[in-house]
């Protein structure tokens, strides 16, 4: 395997609504990540984009994103109908083939274009569950209920997750929701999708994240302390309600194992767990202990820009390596109802 590292990232400030077109939102972030890396467009070997048509309400919506790239002369480019973190995975594969040495990956989405809780229902099977139109919060609440009833999480633990993330987000300029809350205050709040309370649910946002990755000496020449990808893997599990556990995440555990999470201590983990109970489930599935700082950014709970929230976790995890505050970090992205699909990446400094 070639050594590949994250060498730069850029994010838009997550917003509840935006008036800019998706392309207008992209351009400053793409320019920023190029500037942060100190690399010219022409030196990017591969471009890969993650987005979803239903976020903008237009078929082929990703096509216009090419307008933001200055794709002239034509570029080597691809697109995944998924979070931008999966675009990073494709770019990592591409670099492994030896065809290119650098890649710019990005994810973007406007959660505010439509009713995001209703749009996400379309990820369910269209024959049996989908037609019932459970919204995203109700879907997550089914899982939270199962976790509470079986005792794998408690309401207090969920409130602690909400408290920590919202506190952490105070120091994250990109977060959408932040603030200090007490456990009592959080546990006294009204339920919005029983057993979930408002601050158990993600702050859906309009956002963009871009990341540049590079191989070997190229990475060393572009960054003082690249965040080396030491392991990366993704796994999926069944979505079928009668055919999957609501209280464990075997796909996350399998991806973590493949990525080598357990071989050494993880200093910081940035987890794409939109709901509080999901962060608890995921922390357990990944085998993370007390010594790991979880979501210093405030995580997806405090800003969940569709199709870039996972890549933003990678960017945050890499930033801790690059600024020297951590030596081994974990970036995670998920997709689908009940965190059905999980992508895990272990990053290390040299």
């Amino acid at each position, binding site marked *: 395997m070639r050594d590949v590292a994250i060498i730069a990232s850029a994010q838009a400030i997550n917003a509840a609504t935006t008036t800019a077109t998706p392309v207008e939102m992209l*351009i400053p972030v*793409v320019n920023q990540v190029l500037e942060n890396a100190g690399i010219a467009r022409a030196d990017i070997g591969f471009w890969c984009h993650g987005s979803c048509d239903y976020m903008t309400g237009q078929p082929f919506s990703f096509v216009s994103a090419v307008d933001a790239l200055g794709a002239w002369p034509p570029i080597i480019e691809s697109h995944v109908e998924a979070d931008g973190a999966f675009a990073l995975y494709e770019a990592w594969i591409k670099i492994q083939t030896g065809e290119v040495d650098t890649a710019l990956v990005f994810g973007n989405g406007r959660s505010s274009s439509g009713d995001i809780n209703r749009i996400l229902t379309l990820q369910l099977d269209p024959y049996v569950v989908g037609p019932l139109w459970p919204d995203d919060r109700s879907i997550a609440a089914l899982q939270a209920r199962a976790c509470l009833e079986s005792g794998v999480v408690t309401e207090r633990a969920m409130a602690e997750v909400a408290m920590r993330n919202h506190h952490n987000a105070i120091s994250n300029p990109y977060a959408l929701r932040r603030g200090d809350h007490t456990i009592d205050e959080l546990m006294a709040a009204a339920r919005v999708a029983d057993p979930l309370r408002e601050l158990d649910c993600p702050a859906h946002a309009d956002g963009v994240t871009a990341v540049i990755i590079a191989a070997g000496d190229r990475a060393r020449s572009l960054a003082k302390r690249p965040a080396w990808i030491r392991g990366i893997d993704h796994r999926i599990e069944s979505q079928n309600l009668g055919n999957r556990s609501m209280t464990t995440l075997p796909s996350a555990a399998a991806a973590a194992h493949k990525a080598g999470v357990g071989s050494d201590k993880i200093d910081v983990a940035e987890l794409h767990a939109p709901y509080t109970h999901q962060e608890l489930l995921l922390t357990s599935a990944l085998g993370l202990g007390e010594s790991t700082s979880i979501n210093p950014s405030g995580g997806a709970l405090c800003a969940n820009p569709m199709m870039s929230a996972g890549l933003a976790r990678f960017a945050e995890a890499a930033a801790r390596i690059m600024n020297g505050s951590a030596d081994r970090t974990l970036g995670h992205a998920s997709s689908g109802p009940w965190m059905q699909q999980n992508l895990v990446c272990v990053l290390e400094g040299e």
Partner: protein
Amino acid sequence: MSDDVLRIRTPIGIKYQYSAGPRVSSHLHGLMDGRFVGKRCPTCHLVYMPPRNGTCAKCGCLLGEDVEVGQRGTITTFCIVNVPFLGQTIKIPYVAATILLDGADMGMSHLIQEVEAADVRMGMRVEPVWRPRDEWQPSMENVLYFRPTGEPDAAFESYAGQL
């Protein structure tokens, strides 16, 4: 077998709110005023009318200053539509053309009427027919269609670079 359920209908309804984007605002204001206002790319200096999504795709940058272009233009290429389909409100056959407005550097799509489809030519000069002013919205639909001006056709070389 006759009792088998082979298909079910599950209608989907989602409401979306689209953004024109701040850079398209002056263009839409222009349309409310009966004018074609495009934008110039600060990098390659070409004029986009309409200003699409506020970007010059070739340069990958945001468009800059407003530029009002002419009302008349040239048909660079076209299609005679002879197939009826959903939502079509115009009688077939009709002409959908790419029109390069005078002063713009990229063509746009619009309808051609007041001429037999068979008589439409590449290079034909056309002008807009606007809706009555009280029906104007911030939309290119304020122009009902374009029609021939009767001027001599533009030379092929003048628009060959647009094809």
